[in-house]
């Protein structure tokens, strides 16, 4: 669908979309983690730090597909 690669252009500097997606993915994962901590749902996970990394990867993938595609 998006065969031509494109870049983000901020202040005369080109950035790959993946950088922004990864940053947003990390922020979204950490917000999700905090919410799960807040409502004490985190205790149902076997290894929360691993889940956090998985969430960051999932969010980054989702953002890359739907929000800022490459």
């Amino acid at each position, binding site marked *: 669908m998006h065969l031509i690669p494109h870049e983000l252009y901020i202040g005369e*500097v080109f950035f790959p979309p993946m*950088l922004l997606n990864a940053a947003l993915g990390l922020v979204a994962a950490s917000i999700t*983690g*905090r919410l*799960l*901590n807040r409502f*004490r749902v*985190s*205790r149902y*996970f*076997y*290894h*929360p*730090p691993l*889940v*956090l*990394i998985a969430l960051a990867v999932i969010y980054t993938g989702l953002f890359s597909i739907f929000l800022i595609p490459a």
Partner: protein
Amino acid sequence: MPAQTVLSDRVKAAVKTALAIVLAYGVALSMDWGHSYWAAFAVAFCTLSTVGESLNKGLLRLSGTLLGSLAAVTLIALFAQDRWLFLIGMTIFTGFCTYMMSGTSRWYFWQVAGLSVPLLALSGGTDSVNDFETVVTRTEETALGLASYSLVWLLIWPTSSREAFEDAVRRLVAAQRQLTAQVLTPTVGETHDAGPETLRRQTMQMQARLGGLLDGAEVDSYDVWEARRAWRGLIHRLSQLTSASERWRQSLAEVRELDLRRLLPELPEFAAGLDHRFVQIGRMLEGHPPERGPTPVPPSPDDGAIASLSQFQRAALLVYRANLQEVDRLTRDLFDTIADIRSFARAKVYPAYDAAPLLPSALDPERLAGVARWFAGLWLAWIIALYVPDVPNTVEFIVLSNSLSMALFLLPQVPIAGMFLPIALGFALGGAIYVLVMPHLASFASLGVVLFAAVFLICYLYHRPTQAAGKAAALAVLVMLMGVANEQSYNFLNVANLAVVLPLVFAVLAVATHFPVSFRPEHVFLRLLGRFFRACAYLASTLQWDPANPPTRWQRFRRVLHLGDLARAPGKLAIWGSALPAAALGQSTTGQVQALVDSLQALAYRMQDLIETRATPQSQVLVRELLSEVRAWRVALQDIFGNLSQHPEAADFADFRSQLDAMVERLEKQIEEAVAGADQASISTRENENSFRLLGAFRGVSEALVNFARQAGGIDWARLREARF
């Protein structure tokens, strides 16, 4: 001088560091040496509050750089053509340096040696001539940094390390005097204002600083250097005295209801003598000769009065007196050592060292876990640098990951977010100066002013000793980003690339904090607690060892390891307990966690007492009569410790209390029967006294366990164990 009264220590320290960095840059640029910011690094990382301390740290940096340079050149010479062999060799060397950083006041030597290898090997590349030049430049720049701040520290507001060290010793002796008085207060009826908990905490903090201060004072003062062995002996004695005073205080609980003035009639005289001894020690530290030597001896129990006591009261009194004797012995040694240092002694004193066994510290699981954390951080950085395409500034990425991982080995409880803020400040300041200010500067004078202002600001903001690592990291990023050189070039990519590298470095550190060993405070706290009780359980099982049948080598080895765990765990638990986040504390408070740790420290002392007393010859009459009961007591203790190592929350105060009271009552009757039935000549021996002390030690451990159960009731264990993101 009016300036000394106008300017605070905070401003003075910031001015001195800023001046030293400007001076180091000035010389490096005028000599046209490359990597001039390495000289600024030396200043940023080595400046401490006194001349001697800073010089000592600078010398450690220089010698560490030399060792690191040698290792880097050797590794490049051996494995220049094989990437993996080079990485393995480098990991072995740097891992060894990381491991050696623990438990020594000269940790900085190992840290610099360890971080220099990847820095030098990667900066120089594979060109051997370039590698050699890089190594030489690094050594030159480090020496220049050391010379710059030494000059500034000696000329501007100099602070003598010797004075700082001797002042710390004086304050510590005064604190010990007050602590001793606190223990004697309930027994001789005097009152004191200072709180014992605050005093004990202050004593611990002061004691922890003494080693580093002495290292500095040795460099600063020839007098201290000449008497360095005696000073080290003094620090060792002071540490033993702190532990002995604490054991003495613990043993007070069981004799509190007794009339000690009647049982130990010479106690007030002894208390006054002990106090006078501390006064004389303080006098000698001030440089005055003592008025008289230590005279009183520990009081002996009154035989008539002691006959009216129950068996366990008698046992408690003997334990109390044994601790009193130990405090007396140590304060006498302290007196003699200081008299020797100040040349007031008639004969030369050679303080005896009880050499601590190296094995428990060498195989400390937390130390090995720290090395695993560093290893995970470094190799993750390597793998990202090698296999992820287009990672910018790979050299900085690997060097920063390695340096910060090594720093975290030393202070594992520091949260990574706490390190991020100063580095972000250094980055923001350095980036702004590099992009907006430096292109407009035309001379070193203007650059010097900008440098001075930036360094001053960072040093002023991060002025506390606990912020030293943050200050050094912020300064390092600042000078790295500014990249000052004679032929200055500007490239926005330098800033942008570092902006990408820094989050990557922190991501690597965050992963290494959780894998392969978790360093979350609540996980470490529970891990240490489990290890502490496992050590107690094993050591309780060794009480059955028969002196006639010596244990196997493997059993002795395990015993030494567990004794090490027993001694170390409470101190580490105190550090990690204070680092617990609010979410892990739940309903409990930091004060309750501290009280729990204090109860574990008391239990550790009681266990050590029990093991030491068990090693003394025992009365055969009492051993024969009480064998089955004492065995049942030991087995019960073992079971409780074993259970607590898995479930510390299972400690039930009421249950422990009733078990202990029932056991004491049963034994009380049995001892009376045994004493009544035995030949009176055979029970007035020293072995008999040891047996009573052993019973007192058993009871002491049980009382400490009951106290732990009481404190454990206040902890929100469910929240502490709960998994969190």
